[in-house]
């Protein structure tokens, strides 16, 4: 996205991101407070869940009560359960929860049922007591060793047994059928009893009390049914209450969810926004750090270019950062260009701003810069002008007019180009590079003049030798060989002279529109042929390279020379990459044709001299030290320059750099 915004916009975006992050974090904090407040509902939930547990516990106890028939256990269990429910009622009553208060009636119903249970139990116990009495009567009046002596007595005895069974009946059906049987058997017996017999009279009395037996047993059974009914009702009411409470807890949960979820959701969204903001900030910082690291790795002295105290590369007359990042291989190119601008801005704040000019080239700030080189009191008037990548500071003294030449490192246009920040290299006479350039310039001038003269003379020599060779007077073979040898040497000299002339930019070039990539591809076979077997040649050609107006023959020779130099620098296995790329600087497009090798590299102390004619760092080769000189001259003549980057032990990159035109 950075590609589509200006650095100012991105800075604004960054500010907005920080603002959003701040607002998000603040809102998260506010939402958290809301969540905490709304979570208080969970206390109600917990309370109701606790009550549900109490009810469940009490209901479980009811089950055991149902199974216990002993009066004392009944009473004990009943009291315990009653206490539990009264405790539940107390919780409901003392609670400020409206829902609890509404449910008090439900618990009252349970407690009423428990009271009814107790009353029924007491009645049942009364009947049980009566039953015991009846059992005693029956047992006392019917002797186990009594031998009935008549059919009637047998009937009576069986009736006694029926009564005993009836007393132990546990259900109404059995009791009913015993009653039916008793009625039939006893009715028959009663009719045959001799009223005079005392025993018979006793039997008659017991028989007449049979109603009590059946009635008591029936009542006991009915009370048992009633007790079970009470327990069923209590369980049912408890169950309904538990269900209602569970429902209310679910409602509370829903309520809590409704109140807590929106802030939670908002928090999640805000967290997501914050994360994105933090991510963007981290991304930006990481890219910045990456860029800085790359600066270090590349050992670029570009930062130094901002300062007048550092070494200056004469070839860098543009934004050095852009230069560095103009490398097509850099996938982050566009982003880096942007970041470089930001970084550059940053560096502006940290480095000396050399000079700021407005659009009319009038100094805005730092106009006293020149005082660092010459005291203001030592000259009368001064003015400066910008010409040919130099800023010329001219000052008039009593003696006369003098000037100081400041090569321009970089011109940064700001504020819709109304202002320019000019970064100047130290004055020319202080620059080693300038010395080097001067030296090369001088060498070129001398070489050119000398070569031109020698070339003229050699032309005469070669012409004369050719005439001699074609002469009919020359018969001896030995003589012809001598002339051929002389011609060979003369040709060789011509070749050297040509190169010198090329170095001196005096060579007549025949430029034409050339597809550089096609040209290099055409050279591939030649380069491979000349290379050692253990050296791999790789082409890395950018499809964006436009058709370029240059002398193809010279360019071929130049590239081959660079490749031969690269091969000579490789000991053992190695690789050479011939690369083309198009980079975009602030002002123009730049064509880079580079030859990279991983050879032994060029020591820094001789890097300044490699373009000098007849200078060679190769001891065992028969090179004449004119390859790079020729390349230097040709490239210079063609409007470009050669950039050298070399690290001893790592390799060398020789780049032929051509500015293709002004982007603006």
């Amino acid at each position, binding site marked *: 996205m950075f590609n589509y915004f200006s650095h100012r916009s991105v800075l604004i975006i960054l500010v907005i991101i920080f603002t959003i992050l701040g607002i998000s974090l603040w809102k998260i904090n506010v939402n958290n407070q809301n969540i905490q407040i709304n979570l208080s509902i969970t206390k109600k939930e917990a309370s109701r869940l606790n009550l549900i547990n109490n009810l469940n516990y009490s209901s479980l106890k009811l*089950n055991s009560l149902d199974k216990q028939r002993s009066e004392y256990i009944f009473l004990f269990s009943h009291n315990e359960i009653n206490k539990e429910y009264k405790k539940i009622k107390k919780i409901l009553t003392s609670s400020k929860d409206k829902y609890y208060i509404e449910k008090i009636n439900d618990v009252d119903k349970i407690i009423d049922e428990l009271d009814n249970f107790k009353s029924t139990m007491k009645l049942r116990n009364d009947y049980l007591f009566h039953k015991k009495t009846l059992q005693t009567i029956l047992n006392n009046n019917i002797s186990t060793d009594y031998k009935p002596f008549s059919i009637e007595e047998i009937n009576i005895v069986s009736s006694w047994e029926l009564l005993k*069974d009836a007393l132990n009946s*546990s*259900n*109404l*059906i*059995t*009791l*009913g*059928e*015993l*009653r*039916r*049987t008793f*009625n*039939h058997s006893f009715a028959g017996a009663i009719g045959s009893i001799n009223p005079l017999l005392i025993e018979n009279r006793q039997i008659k009395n017991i028989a007449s009390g049979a109603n009590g037996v*059946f009635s008591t047993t*029936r009542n006991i*059974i*009915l009370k*048992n*049914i009633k007790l*079970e*009914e009470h327990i*069923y009702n209590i369980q049912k009411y408890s169950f309904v209450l538990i269900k209602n409470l569970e429902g209310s807890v679910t409602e509370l949960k829903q309520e809590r969810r409704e109140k807590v979820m929106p802030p939670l959701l908002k928090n999640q969204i805000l967290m997501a926004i914050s994360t994105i903001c933090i991510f963007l900030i981290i991304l930006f910082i990481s890219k910045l750090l990456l860029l800085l690291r790359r600066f270090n790795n590349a050992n670029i002295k570009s930062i130094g270019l901002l300062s007048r105290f550092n070494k200056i590369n004469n070839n860098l007359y543009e934004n050095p950062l852009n230069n560095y990042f103009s490398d097509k291989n850099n996938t982050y190119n566009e982003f880096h260009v942007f970041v470089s601008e930001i970084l550059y801005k940053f560096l502006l704040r940290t480095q000396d701003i050399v000079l700021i000019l407005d659009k009319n080239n009038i100094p805005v700030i730092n106009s006293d810069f020149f005082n660092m080189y010459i005291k203001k009191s030592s000259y009368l008037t001064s003015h400066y002008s910008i010409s040919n990548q130099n800023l010329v500071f001219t000052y008039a003294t009593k003696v006369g007019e003098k000037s100081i030449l400041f090569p321009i490192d970089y011109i940064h246009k700001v504020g819709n180009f109304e202002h320019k920040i000019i970064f100047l290299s130290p004055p020319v006479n202080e620059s080693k590079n300038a010395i080097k350039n001067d030296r090369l310039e001088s060498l070129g001038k001398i070489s050119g003049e000398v070569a031109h003269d020698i070339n003229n003379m050699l032309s005469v020599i070669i012409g004369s030798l050719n005439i001699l060779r074609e002469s009919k007077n020359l018969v001896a073979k030995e003589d012809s060989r001598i002339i051929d040898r002389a011609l060979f040497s003369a040709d060789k000299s011509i070749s050297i002279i040509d190169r010198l002339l090329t170095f001196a930019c005096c060579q007549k070039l025949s430029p034409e529109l050339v597809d550089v990539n096609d040209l290099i591809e055409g050279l591939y076979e030649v380069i491979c042929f000349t290379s050692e077997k253990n050296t791999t040649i790789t082409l890395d050609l950018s499809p964006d390279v436009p058709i370029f107006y240059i002398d193809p023959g010279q360019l071929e020779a130049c590239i081959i020379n660079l490749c031969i130099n690269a091969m000579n620098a490789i000991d053992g296995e190695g690789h050479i990459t011939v690369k083309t790329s198009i980079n975009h600087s602030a002002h123009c497009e730049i064509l880079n044709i580079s030859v990279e090798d991983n050879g032994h590299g060029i020591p820094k102390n001789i890097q300044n001299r490699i373009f000098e004619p007849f200078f060679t760092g190769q001891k065992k080769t028969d090179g004449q030290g004119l390859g790079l000189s020729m390349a230097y001259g040709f490239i210079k003549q063609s409007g470009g320059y050669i950039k050298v980057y070399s690290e001893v032990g790592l390799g060398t990159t020789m780049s032929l750099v051509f500015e293709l035109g002004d982007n603006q």
Partner: protein
Amino acid sequence: MKPWHYFLAPLFVCLLMLPTSWANAENHTLNIICSAAPATCNVLRDSFVSIYDIPTNIVRMSSGEALDFIEKNSKSNKLTDISYDVWWGGTGDTHLKAVKNGLMHKFVPNNKALLGWSTYLSDISDGHTVGVYAGMLGVIANKKVLTAQNLDLPNCWSDLGDPKYRGQLIIADPNTSGTAYTFLSTIFQIYDPFQRIQVLAEIKENILKMPKSGSDALLPVASDDAALSVAFIHDVPLLEYQNPSLTIIIPCEGTGYEIGAASILKSTKYLKQAKAFIEYTLLASTQNILTTKTSLQMYSNANTLASPVYKNRKDLNVINYNFNIYSRETVRNDVLSTWNNLGNVD
């Protein structure tokens, strides 16, 4: 004349007038809904008419149909203009439901010889209905079919859920059958809430089909088409006579029972005649006719002859069936929905 002789004259006059009032009633027919076996209904009508000389019309309906009819007929848009006076027979829970809906007239019989279960129904209905007969639930097994498949007789209700009886069991649909509902509520009263679900689920797995009525569930067992069914055991002896392979099992956990009830409808116009009819059916002499001629239930009068089916007291392993609870509509719905949710029978 002694002073009390003066009271004889009005009494005599009253006695003379009594037949006149009966005579007036003759012009009106006593309409009875009978939910007992048709033979029982007819015997009752004939014997009642022969003694009281009251025109009596009996309509045969099942318990469920009768309850539905009474409920619908009590509303403004009546099903029929006929005013029904007595509902005789049919399971006690349906009568109790009608009582709870306020459709029955209060009536406490004068008969003092009624057995405990009969008056129990009267007690829990606050004197609006009375038990006239009772019958126990049992498992009816076809020994021939079981033997052919090398299967033992089940002993308990839980045995009916044994996978070995898969596809051998026929139980009527409890939604339409009083017998099947009694079976369900019996299981509910025997087992705790967790056990009952398991037991019923296993039993339902074994069911071959679910006919609408209890009698229809018994027929396939009688015709050797199925091995097991659940029925009131007094319905079995007649079938047992036709198919000696049938046998009755009283489940080891105890069994439930039904109480056939009699009630006077609130809409009755002939309350005295209605009371007279019910009192008549509670008499030992009347019930003896039914016991010997038509059905084998236990009848409510203590002096009625014992049913041969229930003579063996050791077989009377009965639970204290709580009619009051299991006649409640909410409880009935719970019981039925529990059963219905257990899964479908193929």
